[in-house]
């Protein structure tokens, strides 16, 4: 079974600064996907970024980028130029690529990020 660990229950950052959220995972799979989802106070789950394990290049989406270390099973999220709207719970998630139509996401426990003005 896969497990996803987010070791920082809460973090805070000043507006316009950079913050990194950590995530580690445990799997015996070789092909898989990793995701960061954001859940603001509105409760809506929003995809932030996606990484395919076979791709060595780290994914980026505007101010969001990841540091994917496959050997270390680490998948951290860096948010640059933090904005007040980035305040949310951030979930790291794992999806294995094998197993027929089994596309379930296994989530970490989340990191509550607060961006301060």
């Amino acid at each position, binding site marked *: 079974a896969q497990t996803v660990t987010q070791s920082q229950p809460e973090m805070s950052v000043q507006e316009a600064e950079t913050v990194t959220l950590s995530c580690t995972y445990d799997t015996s799979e070789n092909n898989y*996907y990793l*995701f960061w989802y954001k*859940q603001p106070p509105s*409760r*809506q*789950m*929003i*995809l932030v970024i*996606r990484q395919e394990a076979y791709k060595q290049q780290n994914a980026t989406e505007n101010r969001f980028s990841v540091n994917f270390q496959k050997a270390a099973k680490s998948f951290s999220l860096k948010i640059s130029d933090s904005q007040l709207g980035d305040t949310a*719970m951030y*979930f790291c998630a794992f*999806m294995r*690529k094998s197993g*027929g*139509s*089994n*596309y*379930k*996401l*296994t*989530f970490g*426990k*989340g990191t509550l990020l607060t961006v301060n003005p």
Partner: protein
Amino acid sequence: DTAVSQTPKYLVTQMGNDKSIKCEQNLGHDTMYWYKQDSKKFLKIMFSYNNKELIINETVPNRFSPKSPDKAHLNLHINSLELGDSAVYFCASSQDFNEQYFGPGTRLTVT
């Protein structure tokens, strides 16, 4: 247009009642899911359907019964509600290994 919709968004009911939550997606996706988010915000898969076929059933009590009348709909029926069923239930959909799109969630409160 809402991609994944759920009704109702809030549901308050008493122990022992039976209730249903409906989910619809207009994205043409083949796979739909139900996730449960507990009071500590932990999200866990409950069920997954692919083209109306049950793919995942993650040790959920028999009181929970998903039904997929077609691939655009996945409903969740819960019998004999218990206090511990209080949570936010999210429906989601995806096409293969791509992004899962989540509905707005249904906050269920059992009193």
